[in-house]
């Protein structure tokens, strides 16, 4: 299908027509369209990479690098996913590069905190839902392994489907399902431990 500017590669996928339109304009060097797309997507890219980098300076750099790549590679977008999914896929690789350069272990597993967090007796979901606090959720998410944290962020923050998460993480749907299952369980256990600790104080 030919697009108005003659670029046959870029076509829209339901729900992100506006992003596709900007991307078509970017492919022909339109800086105003790049600014629009930046304003639309930089927040979600920042939130995604910040979950792992935990440093606003590094996260800002990854956002700029990602959108710079979008500027250079706009023509190569094939329309097989949403623009946002494509952009987050680029951001993920940029973020992994930063983590590699740091060379350190990138997360602490929740199990490492077993001495800090008193026990793992599960609390009912109902009690958790009523009492859990924002900072506990953030803390427990930080302790998840990278892939699980990523899946959970894309699920809850971006509202992505199983297929979309699989595209970004380069894995089958079932792997996404398993990651979410484990992430959910670990978060729940971690929150329950927090609750126990608060109750014992």
């Amino acid at each position, binding site marked *: 299908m030919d697009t108005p500017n003659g670029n046959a590669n870029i076509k829209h996928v339901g729900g992100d027509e506006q992003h596709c339109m900007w991307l078509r304009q970017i492919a022909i060097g339109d*800086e105003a369209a*790049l*600014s629009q797309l*930046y*304003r639309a997507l*930089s*927040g979600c890219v*920042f*939130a995604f990479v*910040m979950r792992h980098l935990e440093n*606003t300076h590094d996260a*800002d750099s990854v*956002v*700029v690098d990602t*959108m*710079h*790549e979008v*500027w250079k*590679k706009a023509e*190569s977008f094939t329309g097989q996913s949403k623009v946002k999914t494509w952009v987050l896929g*680029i951001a*993920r*690789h940029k973020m*992994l*590069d930063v983590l*590699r*350069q740091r*060379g350190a272990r*990138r997360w602490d597993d929740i199990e490492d905190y077993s001495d800090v967090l008193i026990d793992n007796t599960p609390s*009912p*979901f*109902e009690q*958790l*839902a009523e009492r*859990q*606090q*924002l*900072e506990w*959720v*953030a803390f427990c*998410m930080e302790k998840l392994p*990278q*892939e699980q944290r990523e899946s*959970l*962020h894309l*699920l*809850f*923050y971006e*509202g*992505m*489907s*199983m297929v*979309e998460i699989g595209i970004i993480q*380069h894995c089958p749907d079932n792997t996404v*399902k398993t990651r*979410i*299952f484990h992430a*959910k369980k670990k*978060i*729940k256990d971690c929150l329950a431990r927090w609750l126990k600790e608060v109750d014992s104080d």
Partner: protein
Amino acid sequence: MSQSNQATQELRRAQALLPWFVNGSLSAVDEQWLKEWLEYHPEETEIHTELVWLKQTANQVKSSVELPDADHGLDLLLSKIHQEKSIAAEVKRLANRSAQSPRSLWSKFIDLMSSPIMSMGLVALLLVQTGVIKTLLNSKNSPNSIEQSQDLTPLSGSNQPVNGTVLQLTFVPSSTEAQMSKILNNAHAEIVSGPGALGIYVVQVPSSDADRAVKAFEQEKQVIESVRQP
């Protein structure tokens, strides 16, 4: 299938679909099925309370990131692009000038040579130049002469030509730079480019070691996700 088996399977399906029911990305068919299942199974209290917890957690995950002002990053990006554009324009301008200059110099040279005084001057210049070249050739054979140009090497970067086998590697997300360097060094591989938008690194290995390198890379499943020969 027995009734209890079917009930267990339905419960599992409901549990698996629940996170995507909460984020609103289920297909219409799955969403309808889950709505009805929840309605007909009020006795499954755990799944109903999990639904409440998931909604609460989703809201908290959404509000746990403070977003920065987009203007600063956008300014940085645009200035980066403008800088690249001005460099590209300068390179183009210089390339155009060098492409045009031989013609204009040549036409000036023809004009100058049409005068008899300049022709005589040129003959004199050629004689002087011949003398200088002869002196230089003699001094090159003396013991204190400067080393010949083939001994000069670049100050930085590899001076080896790109003539090995090229491979495309993707590293697993959890791999560290140290792990990657170790594996590449063991295989005498050098990164030629990358990572690209899809995280692909292009590496070059000596052609004589290519098969051994591919096997070695394939064994490093903890670090290398995929090996491909383009």
